[in-house]
Every structure is written in structure tokens, then in C-alpha cells.
């Protein structure tokens, strides 16, 4: 950090004294403000009869939650309900990060495509999604797109057992049958073998300079071994097909419309931003680099993988880290369309018992933790692609 160098005055001790005094004054102001707020809060809570503290987390929640990854019913405690919310936030964020990265890369590559029409359409996509509030995109997806799907009775069925209706998406649910455990063990063994082949291939290339297709070989090993195990254990994965009964589908794996809308909205919105990062990454690679590699006769796939990609990632990754963090924070907009994420569940709890301070503190703690984990992970990735300055 560059800082303004202090001008040496004649009485240095006087200046130090002044600095200490100023800091002390700031401290006094901050502390007294905190004390003032604390006093008021105590008085207000007493007046409203709200008991502060986290004891309420153990009380029975009595609030219904539509979507839950773990078993939940209203007799469970507030703390458990909040945990359901956290898991929902994590699940939707994780899925959205993966999908928006894929879509974002496609959009970014399309933006710099030599195909005029493709580049134009990608630009329109980016400029549209980036200039409309995410909340509107979410409501639009929820009310207009999902709302205009047919009633479950006349659900659109793209494949056998896959149904699209205004009550959500229903797909067959995989069910573990006899021998599934053995199959999983075989799959783990296969992946260990595949990864060690990849590592060996890399070391072999370093040692001898000969190319061994490590990734493809590893994939082949994994596919063949798991395929054999699948056949040997006699197809251990059954499926439960959703069926229309009464008013809605039963059985199968159901994705609620709120979840589908939230995921779609988040992915479409974030992909526009990631697409821009990818585009600026690609454009930041000097044309001379690609031309030089082509002139040396390097195959175009290798040029992309080993010349363009590493340099483009240097620009793309830091910007994308911010977009991932925003995505997790944006998932809180679930509250507007009724998906029970952490903010939505917490908001209901505040409405029931008025423990606003505790719930807001818990929200902040969870979001800060998630954000720190994301920036930690992405910084690790980033430190691998940045130029090592000597």
C-alpha cells in the first residue's frame, strides 16, 4: 500500500500524540454509538417481550417447507428448518454455478465466433439479460414461462417418463437395487485406476516427451470398467417413473416449479456475465500468439488448449470469482418466488417469533462463510493460472 509519507514536523512527539488522540477519539465515538444501539435494542426488545438469544432454535417450528433435501416436517425445530434452508441455498447455488459456467462459456465463445449471426444473437442475449433486473427475470420465468406450461393432466412429455407441466418437471427416479453397493465400489476402483493412468501419462510425457492420451485413456478405462461392473452386477439401477394420479404426478423425481424457475433465472442471468468474462478473456490473448503458434505448425486444438486457454483464463477467472459470489447472494431472491431457501425460511421465522437480530446474524454468517469458501477455492485456481513473476 502506498501511503502519504508523513511530513516531519519539528515536534514529532506532538504529531504522534495527535495521531493517538485522533484514533482514541474514533474509538470512543464507535464504542459509544455501539453502546447507544445496544441500550436501545435491549429496551425495545424488553418492551416487545422478545427474548434475545439463540434458545428459540430448539423450539418447534411449525412451519411447512415445500422443498427439502433432508426429511422435514413442521414438528422439527427452528434450527432444523433453517438448516433445510441452508441446504436448499447450497444446492441451488451449486447447480446454478455448474450450469451457468457451461452456458457462459458457450455464450462467450459464440460472442467471438466468426459466424456473424451467432455472434449477434449471443450479443443480444448478453445485452438483454444484463440490463434487466434478475428479480424480473425470475418472476418472468416463474409466472410466464412455467405458468404457461400445461396442467399435469396434459403434461408435455419429451421422452418416456419425463414430464413438463406447470407443477414442475418430473423425471424418473433412479432406485438402487441389489448389487448397487458392489457396483459403486467397482466404480470407485475404476475412477482411481483412471486417475492414476492420467497421472502416469503425464509423468511419462514429462520424462520421455512422448504423448500418451491421458485424459481419453482414463475416460476409456473408467467407461469400460464401470460398464463391465454394471453388466456383471446385473443392472442394479432401476427407475421409478412418475405417474399422473388425481391432481398431480406421484413417484419419480419431482422438481418444483419454484426451484426450476429460480435455477433457470439464475443460470440465464449469470451466464450473461460469465459469457462477457470469457469473451474478454479470449479477446485479451494477443492475436500474435495464435498466429505464431499456427506458423509453427501447432495443431489448432493444441493452440486452443495450450496457447489460448491458459492466457484467457488469467483474465476470466478473477472476474468469474466475483460472479460466483454474486450468484450465491442472488439466490436469496428465491424469497420472491417462494422457493424455501435460507432467506425465505428465515423471513418466515422472523414473522413468527420476531427474532430478527439472531436470524439476520445467522444469514450474514452463512453468506460470509460461503463467499469466503468460494474466493478461497477460486484463488487457489487463480494462483495456478497467473503468471509466476520472477
Amino acid at each position: 500500500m502506498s501511503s502519504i509519507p508523513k511530513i516531519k514536523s519539528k515536534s514529532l512527539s506532538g504529531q504522534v500524540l495527535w495521531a493517538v488522540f485522533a484514533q482514541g477519539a474514533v474509538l470512543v465515538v464507535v464504542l459509544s454509538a455501539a453502546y447507544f444501539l445496544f441500550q436501545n435494542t435491549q429496551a425495545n426488545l424488553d418492551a416487545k417481550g422478545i427474548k434475545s438469544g439463540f434458545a428459540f432454535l430448539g423450539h418447534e417450528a411449525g412451519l411447512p417447507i415445500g422443498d427439502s433435501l433432508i426429511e422435514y416436517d413442521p414438528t422439527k425445530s427452528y434450527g432444523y428448518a433453517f438448516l433445510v434452508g441452508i441446504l436448499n441455498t447450497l444446492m441451488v447455488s451449486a447447480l446454478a454455478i455448474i450450469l451457468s459456467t457451461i452456458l457462459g462459456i458457450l455464450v462467450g465463445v459464440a460472442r467471438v465466433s466468426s459466424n456473424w449471426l451467432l455472434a449477434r444473437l449471443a450479443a443480444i442475449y448478453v445485452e438483454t439479460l444484463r440490463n434487466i433486473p434478475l428479480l424480473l427475470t425470475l418472476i418472468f420465468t416463474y409466472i410466464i414461462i412455467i405458468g404457461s406450461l400445461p396442467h399435469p393432466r396434459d403434461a408435455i412429455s419429451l421422452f418416456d417418463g419425463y414430464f413438463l407441466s406447470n407443477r414442475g418437471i418430473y423425471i424418473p427416479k433412479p432406485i438402487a437395487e441389489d448389487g448397487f453397493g458392489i457396483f459403486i465400489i467397482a466404480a470407485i476402483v475404476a475412477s482411481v485406476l483412471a486417475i492414476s493412468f492420467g497421472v502416469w501419462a503425464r509423468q511419462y510425457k514429462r520424462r520421455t516427451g512422448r504423448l500418451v492420451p491421458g485424459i481419453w485413456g482414463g475416460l476409456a478405462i473408467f467407461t469400460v470398467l464401470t460398464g463391465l461392473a454394471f453388466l456383471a452386477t446385473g443392472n442394479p439401477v432401476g427407475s421409478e417413473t412418475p405417474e399422473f394420479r388425481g391432481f398431480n404426478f406421484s413417484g419419480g423425481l419431482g422438481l418444483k416449479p419454484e426451484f426450476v424457475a429460480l435455477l433457470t433465472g439464475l443460470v440465464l442471468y449469470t451466464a450473461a456475465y460469465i459469457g462477457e468474462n470469457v469473451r474478454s478473456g479470449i479477446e485479451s490473448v494477443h492475436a500474435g500468439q495464435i498466429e505464431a503458434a499456427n506458423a509453427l505448425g501447432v495443431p489448432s486444438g493444441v493452440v486452443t488448449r495450450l496457447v489460448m486457454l491458459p492466457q484467457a483464463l488469467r483474465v476470466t477467472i478473477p472476474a468469474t470469482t466475483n460472479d460466483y459470489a454474486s450468484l450465491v447472494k442472488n439466490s436469496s431472491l428465491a424469497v420472491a418466488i417462494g422457493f424455501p431457501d435460507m432467506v425465505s425460511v428465515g423471513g418466515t421465522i422472523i414473522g413468527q417469533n420476531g427474532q430478527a437480530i439472531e436470524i439476520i446474524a445467522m444469514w450474514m454468517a452463512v453468506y460470509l462463510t460461503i463467499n469466503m469458501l468460494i474466493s478461497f477455492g477460486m484463488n487457489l485456481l487463480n494462483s495456478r493460472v497467473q503468471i509466476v513473476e520472477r
Partner: protein
Amino acid sequence: MTQITSEIGTKTFEPLAARGAPTQHIGPLNWLRKNLFKGWLNSLTSLVLIGVLLWVLPVMINWLFLDAVFRGNGEVCRQSAGACWPFIYEKIPVLMVGVYPQELIWRPAVAGVALLALVYLTFSDRIRGFVLIGAWLALPLFALVMIGGAFGMTEVNQSLWGGLMLSILLALVGVIVSIPLGVMLALGRFYGSPLVKALCIGFIELIRGVPLITILFMVSVMMPLFLPPEMIINNLMRIQIGMIFFSAAYMAEVIRGGLQAIPKGQTEASLALGVSPNHTILFVIVPQALRHVLPPLIGRCIALFKDTSLVIIVGLLDFLGMIKGAALDPDWLGFQTEAYFFAAFVYWLICYSLSRYGRALENRGPNGAKR
């Protein structure tokens, strides 16, 4: 023919036949070949995309214009397959100002005209420098006076403010207050004494680490608990304060980027000339830093305007809130697609023009193309 004689022997140099004139690289056909049909993959992509467009565009155009109803009421609209635009005309006053008293509607209208005039003057580069800044600082005050009522005008309670007016007001006041606040936070983080620095970092990182909704919940639910009961700040004001804090933290990070980009020589030169450290920061560093980060600052302004849509979650009826309400009007049931389409268009128009303006500034600024 040229005879070339060397130690190896004699060879005849025979020039190759002259190449033909280069093929024309202009004209629509060549443009098509170059941009849409270069190689089989490219051609296939183009064909697929053209197919999709031929399928989607007619549907869109039919719905938007050809089959749309432009005059009539809900009944007429229901018989048509297209969009129902009379619905939007009728709802325009509500969408713009919410439930603001009908007879006083001229007051926000005057403020709106002033805003449009100032936007025109700014975009067309008619006013610059201090006049520009002064006008933008004065505008929200003028708008607040006109909308809220003062100096003998009838007062209009803040609970009656709504619609696009409220969205723009929240964003405008938010931007104008949060930029100075952001500058102060950034300076505190960059130059402050350890305690001030720690406080600034704590504030910035805490706010940037949590979603805006939690901050809005905090100001609307928690803030009344923090303050003595006799100190009542109404909901709109509290939410405005929350938006300002949120925006200031992000502005501070943008401005810090600008502070970091100013070369050290600037500080040293200024100090060497005998300018005091405080004046150096205020008159040498900050103006350059702000100029440097103008494009991302405009990006933050756009983000803040988009973020104002979140206030419906804590009970304010901004533009999106009014759209939601209009879609539920029993006289006009079933036209929510039109309502949300219109909302998207308005948000898009405002944000896109702002971002175009930002890009124009970028090209005009110190690092622009016209160097």
C-alpha cells in the same frame, strides 16, 4: 528469359504465369460467404440459427404487433391472439407514480421532465464540469420537494409514493449519496490510520459479503429495534439508507481500484511542491482516481437501479411492484405477459442507455480511443 550462370551450371529462369485479378471481396454475396457460410460447421450453424429465427420471429412479431390490440378494453383483448396494449396505456399513470394523488400528478411530472431534460443535456454533452455535477446534485432535491411537497405545497405522505418514480428516486438519491460515502470509505481503507482502516475494511467486506435482501430486511425489521422508540424513521427512508450503505461499499471498492491506479509520482510531485497531504489527496489523487473509474462507476449505477427492484420484498411498491399489482387487476386479468414484457422493456431501455453512455465516456475519457 534470364540466363543464370553459376558454378553448378546454367539454368533458365522462367517466371510463372501472372496471377489473375483477386476475386472481389465486396458485395452482399461475398459478405454472406465470409460471415455465414465459411466452412461446413459455420454453414450448418447459420442454417440452424436461421431456422430458429424463422420460427421464433414471426411468432414474436405477430404477438407484439400484427395480432395485437391497440385500442379497446379487456373484452376486445380477450378475443384476440395478440398482445393487449390498451392495458398498458390505461395503467401508465399507476406504473409511473403508483397511488400518488391524481390531482397532484403534475408535480412528479414536472420533476420527470426536469430529469429528462438533464439526461438530454448530459448525454448530448451540452453541460460539463461543475455545472453538470451541480445540476445532478440539485435534481433529487428538486424532485423530493416537488413530489413530497414543501414551501406551501400540499404534502404527500411517503407511503403514497410508488411506481417508476420511486425506483428512479431510490436509485438517484442512492447514487448521489453513496459516491461521496464510497470515496470516504475508500480513502479510509487506503490512507487511514490502523483503526479507521480496520473499520472501513470491516464495513465494506461485511456489506459486500451478504445479499442486498438481508440488508433490506435489516433496515426494515432490525433498524427500528436499534433506535430509541421516539426516533421514528419511516420505511422508505430506512430502505433508502440501506440501499445507500449497500451501494457505498461497492462504490468504495471501485474507487479503491482507481486510487491504486494513480502512479506514486503524482503524490510525490504534489508533496514536493509543498501541497499539504490532505490537499494532495483531495485535489490531486481523488479527481484522477474518479476519472479513471468512471466506466465501472456507471456500471455500479446501473446495478443499483436494477437492485431497486428488490424493495418490493420489503413492502415498497416500486415500478415492478406496480407491474405486479396491475397484472392482478380483475378488469384486465390474463395480461400479465404484457405487463412483465413492458417492465422488462422499460428496465432494459434505461439500463442499456446508461451503459451506452458509459461506453461513450470510456472512449472519450483519458484512456479512450481519442488519445
